[in-house]
């Protein structure tokens, strides 16, 4: 049934219909509305049986989920930003143990400087933690990916992170075709753990592994993710049969047929990109877009197929690998090695800076006209940076950089965008 509701509410209700048995909640903006929504659904009896645990930190959140999952319960939590860093040790542990936990990340920047707005730095910091990472483009997909995530996680015994752009999706009211309990029940069977803390059949979970087998255990995790490359499209096809719509998959293509230039991105920004692509197409420019849904495992082969014949790729990325450039572009380059396709990176939307059509138009135009440098920072105020560098040259004790730069800008609280 179509409903107009907040992204977080759509996610909460969908997660509840996936019948998680243990939910670990810890507040952090912009994910909080999701666990608040779940709190109500548990407390008013809609979701039952379910233990809703208000933990004392994100480290505890993931740790409680680990214990619950190993003891045979379907476990769920959500976090963002500082929270995912605080739980980092347990994030690696959950995947190392092969526990099918599902976690929503309401994507947000990382401090310092503290910033509550959207970008992808948080989930990118965990991209090599062994979790599957799926990025949602719309709130419809955000809700749907959770159903897929539980199924996928449990089928291959790996945890799955569903990455949802903070505020832009989590706090947006839009139309979502809400699944029914019957649909979800028919798609998602009850959790049958591969390993279980069981008094009748005692096992040891989490043993120390030395050099003799550590590589093999790690390789096994890699192997599982490679399997997921096949499984994700299959589960997405099944999803379409059950729910009647496309969600998930490894990647989405948009007007890439005959394209010379293709813009690659993750998450909700693809919506704005599509609008700009349409404008260019109206002018006859052969340009298209790809949004990567599954960033881990990384869809090397699918990208190669989708980009065959393309001349250039531009990645629009919401995280910065400081000292290198993009996080996505190097992986795209590796996928396209030997195909003679140039890859340029645009770093955009850091800490919630609006990614506007007009700015995208400019860089896409540059790309099409072969003027785009390998690394571009969208709407960067270089003057502000230079003023700070000047201060630092002039005075050894120039003070805290972020504060000085804000002082230069003056009050900006009421600015649009």
């Amino acid at each position, binding site marked *: 049934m179509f409903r107009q509701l907040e992204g977080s509410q759509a996610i909460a209700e969908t997660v509840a219909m996936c019948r998680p048995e243990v939910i670990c909640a810890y507040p952090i903006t912009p994910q909080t509305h999701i666990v608040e929504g779940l709190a109500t659904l548990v407390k*008013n009896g809609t979701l039952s049986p379910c233990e809703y645990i208000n933990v004392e930190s994100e480290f505890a959140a993931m740790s409680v989920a680990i214990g619950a999952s190993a003891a045979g319960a379907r476990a769920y939590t959500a976090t963002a930003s500082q929270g995912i860093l605080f739980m980092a040790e347990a994030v690696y542990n959950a995947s190392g143990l092969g526990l099918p936990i599902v976690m929503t990340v309401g994507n947000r920047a990382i401090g310092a400087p503290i910033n509550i707005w959207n970008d992808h730095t948080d989930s990118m910091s965990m991209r090599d933690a062994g979790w599957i990472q799926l990025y949602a483009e719309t709130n419809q997909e955000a809700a749907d990916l959770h159903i897929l995530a539980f199924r996928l996680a449990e089928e291959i015994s790996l945890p799955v992170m569903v990455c949802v752009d903070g505020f832009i999706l989590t706090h947006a009211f839009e139309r979502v075709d809400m699944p029914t309990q019957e649909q979800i029940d028919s798609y998602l069977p009850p959790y049958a753990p591969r390993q279980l803390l069981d008094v009748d059949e005692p096992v040891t979970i989490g043993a120390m592994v030395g050099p003799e087998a550590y590589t093999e255990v790690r390789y096994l995790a890699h192997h599982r993710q490679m399997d997921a490359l096949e499984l994700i499209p299959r589960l997405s096809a099944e999803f379409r049969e059950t729910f009647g719509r496309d969600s998930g998959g490894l990647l989405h293509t948009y007007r890439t047929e005959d394209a010379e230039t293709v813009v690659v991105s993750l998450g909700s920004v693809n919506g704005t990109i599509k609008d700009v692509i349409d404008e260019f197409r109206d002018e006859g420019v052969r340009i298209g877009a790809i949004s990567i849904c599954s960033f881990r495992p990384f869809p090397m082969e699918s990208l190669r197929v989708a980009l065959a014949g393309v001349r250039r790729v531009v990645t629009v990325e919401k995280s910065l690998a400081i000292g290198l450039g993009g996080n996505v572009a190097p992986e795209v380059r590796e996928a396209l090695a030997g195909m003679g396709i140039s890859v340029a990176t645009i770093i955009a939307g850091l800490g919630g800076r609006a990614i506007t059509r007009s700015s995208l138009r400019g860089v896409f135009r540059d790309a099409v006209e072969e003027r785009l440098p390998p690394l571009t920072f969208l709407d960067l105020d270089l003057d502000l940076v230079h003023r700070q560098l000047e201060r630092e040259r002039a005075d050894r004790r120039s003070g805290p950089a972020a504060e000085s730069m804000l002082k230069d800008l003056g009050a900006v*609280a009421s600015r649009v965008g």
Partner: protein
Amino acid sequence: MEAATNGQTVGPARVRFYQTGTFTVGNRLLDVSVQSVQSDPRRNNSLNSGHRACQGCGEALGARYALDAAMRATKNRIVVANATGCLEVFSTPYPESSWRVPWLHSLFGNAPAVATGIAAALKVKGKDDVRVVAQGGDGGTVDIGFGCLSGMFERNDDVLYICYDNEAYMNTGVQRSSATPAGAKTNTTPGVGEEPGNVFGQGKSVPLIAMAHGIPYVATASVADLRDLEYKVQKAMGLHGARYIHVHVPCPLGWGSAPSDTIRVARLAIESGLFPVFEAEWGEVTGRRRIRDLVPAQAYLEAQGRFRHLFGKHPDTRRIAWIQDIANRNIRRFGLLDEGVQS
């Protein structure tokens, strides 16, 4: 600043203003030695006006008094480490910082450890006269920062840690912390279902846990008695080693109380016995604030929207009685009605 009247005192010199029946917050007409810090026109205004806290924010009030008192006690030589939370967020959007002290915000859960680092640096640099204050909300203190806090206590690091307890995670929009009282509604303990609001447990008293570390000084205080808060901060700054002050600070937004009722609500918490005000040295209780006009717990609860589901057409008498029991236990445990205790 010790009171002259009574050996068992916990407060500053008390001056009764019988015409109003209240303790005043200091007065410029009094002798300089008994004036409050806030009545001093040369006070530091450590947390200056113009910040973005809500109207009636207890935390803003408590922090202002506490830090000004710490500044006076140290002749303006303090450095402050602040945990993430309302206090940090409403005071800092640059270029409008409200802090007139050297101030560092690092993370949500590490303020005690950051303060330890500051103290260590000051020591190694020979800056013996500069003192360290760390502060955070209840979430930053009793939940996520608790491990670091206990470590700081156990090492007896030279830090005064002040917790502003508004009994929930307010900065993120009112979620439960382990300082949230039984029965209170928050957004993660909604007022629905058979047992609406927060679970009924025995609670978690970090002041008592701090005392179990055997540190030199532990105290509780409230914005309902700001003169007492100033006194305790000044006393703590006269000591070295790990010190802890836990301040009860109503939050109109999270508690569903009127902004103009902040002090009244805080006072009802004291007068009902639900928030015991006491101090302890080296793990022993050495003083307590006597209840002057005992009120039933209900009077406190009814002043706040977060307990509304306990009342209405069918009052939840069982759970109201449970809360009253908590108050009674506090009264017995800390001797809050005992004769001879200063009031």
